[in-house]
């Protein structure tokens, strides 16, 4: 059966994250006083149509490099499930 990739795309540390910042402020405004840093990233879930874990991971890697993450500002992490 086909393997699914769960990909996390995160802004690199140091790249400012206006969305995360806005969420942080909103949480404080809602009374969550202790909240520290908030970062927002992307969750991309893909049906790989591939049953071999090796090839599945390798394909997901290429997808991230070629399209899903922008190496200038983003890191990515791949989980297969």
């Amino acid at each position, binding site marked *: 059966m086909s393997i699914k990739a769960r990909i996390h795309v995160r802004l690199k540390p140091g790249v400012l994250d*206006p*969305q995360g910042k806005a969420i942080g402020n909103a949480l404080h405004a809602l009374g969550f006083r202790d909240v520290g840093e908030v970062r927002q990233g992307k969750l991309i879930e893909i049906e790989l149509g591939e049953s071999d874990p090796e090839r599945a991971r390798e394909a997901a890697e290429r997808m991230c490099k*070629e*399209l899903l993450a922008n190496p*200038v500002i983003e890191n990515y992490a791949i989980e297969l499930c």
Partner: protein
Amino acid sequence: MKAGIVVFPGSNRERDLAAAFQRATGQKPIFLWHGDSEIPDLDLIALPGGFAYGDYLRCGAMAAHSPVMREIRVRAAAGVPILGVCNGFQVLTEAGILPGALLPNRSLAFHCHDVRLRVENSQTIFTCGYEAGGVIRVPVAHHDGNYTADAETLDRLEDKGLVAFRYCDEAGGLSEDANFNGSARSIAGIFNDSRNVLGLMPHPENATDPLLGGTDGCAFFEGLVGALQ
């Protein structure tokens, strides 16, 4: 002068740009379809504003992979002048033809209004219609114009005179307020190393008609056309 404007699915300012070129050259630019892998010989190739492929995933990310971009990368390397306005700028950074990236505006909102730009370098084909240090008024219309790059890149851009325009106030001063979208070092537009590629977020093409509230963009196109003829 033969200019070509690339049309991606989701481009929406290709006509605005064509009108500005036509005003400056008297002749209509040709439109290039994103799917074309060959393109004719051209004196200039422009990537217009809009939401190519919906700007889904990241602005310009998918457009950067369309067939026409392979050829544009080659032309850029060969020294053909390439202009990317707004979404076109985003596409050029995603394609790695220009350094850095464009994040969502500081406000996380779309901004459509006039801004003041300071011309940082007038010694290029794109900016020779202006004086260095001059201040011009042109509109912006974008959600993701917050330019970012690592410190070394920013230093290099500044040292080599590769910053084309900065957001400024009416007197040419830089400030938090003037830098409405939060761009690093107030950068509104940059050149590649050999200065034959320019990417900028503001829309000079929407400031070329007195009836539409401004003509500060005319010198941009007239200068460019002059330099290429």
